[in-house]
């Protein structure tokens, strides 16, 4: 009898734990971490925004578009350096965000390209950005604008943020080199 009640108790615990997990998984889908845009030179008609996308679900998703009221259009691009030639390509099929994984948009790689800027992006200000995912739908974020020099540190091992839930203020993302 005793064994039965403890077994039942354990069963209840398991059920409770799994329902909590399910509820959490349903609530959190894609988490946008450390978004930032780079301040632009005067007159520049394009800008770039960076961030880390964390897919907390167990289904693959895809960043398929974006929009902002500071730019005529927003596209998802990939930059690469091939034999000293800088190449930029629009990701025609969007950017895959695999289940349970993080994808970093950072200098030298993927970025959200702001095209036809309506105003200069000034350090210290923010811009609104809506990201559209195939499954998660629209996610709106407020993107801080950082000084142009703040990109310098980005190749200093920000790396993949797998498993990192929140980033503390003053972390790599907010560092500025001056």
């Amino acid at each position, binding site marked *: 009898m005793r064994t039965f009640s403890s077994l039942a108790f354990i069963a209840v615990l398991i059920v409770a734990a799994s329902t909590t997990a399910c509820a959490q998984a349903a609530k959190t889908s894609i988490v946008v971490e450390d978004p930032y845009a780079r301040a632009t*030179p005067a007159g*520049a008609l*394009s800008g770039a925004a960076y961030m880390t996308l964390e897919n907390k679900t167990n289904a693959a998703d895809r960043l398929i578009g974006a929009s902002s009221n500071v730019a005529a*259009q927003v596209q998802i*691009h990939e*930059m690469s350096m091939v034999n000293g*030639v*800088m190449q930029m390509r629009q990701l025609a099929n969007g950017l895959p965000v695999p289940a349970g994984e993080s994808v970093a948009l950072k200098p*030298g790689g993927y970025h959200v390209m702001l095209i036809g800027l309506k105003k200069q992006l000034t350090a210290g200000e923010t811009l609104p950005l809506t990201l559209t995912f195939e499954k998660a739908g629209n996610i709106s974020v407020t993107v801080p604008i950082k000084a142009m*020099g703040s990109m310098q540190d980005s190749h200093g091992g920000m790396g993949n943020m797998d498993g990192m839930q929140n980033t503390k203020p003053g972390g790599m993302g907010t560092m500025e080199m001056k």
Partner: protein
Amino acid sequence: MRARQWAVVALAGVAGFAAVFLCIALMTTGRPTGEAAGIPAIGGPFELVDDNGKPVSDKQLVGKPFAMYFGYTFCPEVCPTTLLDLSRWIKDLGSDADKLNYAFVSIDPERDTPKLLHMYLSSFDPHIRGFTGTSEQIAKIAREYRVYYKKVPTENGSYVMDHSSIMYLMGADGKMASAIVYQEDDASALKKLRSLITTSPSS
């Protein structure tokens, strides 16, 4: 076995360095006879418009060694980073900064008017001048400097440019002395700029 593998790796590393060194040596010492040896000379005459809308030619640049970079204002990352780096190096050169000329040449003349270039460059060190021109003029200077550039369309009629990311360091005689690569560290870049000032003084 382990040691042997390491030896192979080390040997490959040494060979790689030797190849790079040889390449640089050829690029620098081989220059005077470069064409005869099959290495095309880099640089040459050009006629463009500066960011004040005034005509500019190579004749106004030579006489002083100069740093030349090819890019475009629509570039979200590589060009502002390079111009920011260059601005910092110019500042670090102090009073020696005036011993060099600095030019940002647009490979996107369709969008980069002198006026836009002027506004854009106001965000960087004032030593840096902006050059643009007709498509033909840009094609000519790009050929002379062996600069690769290509228009790549994106959605909704917009486009971006693929382009070489190297910064050319040219002697006072208008011939290439060395180059700075994208995101080269400050110490190395400054050493090259200082060396350009001392080995190729203004004539």
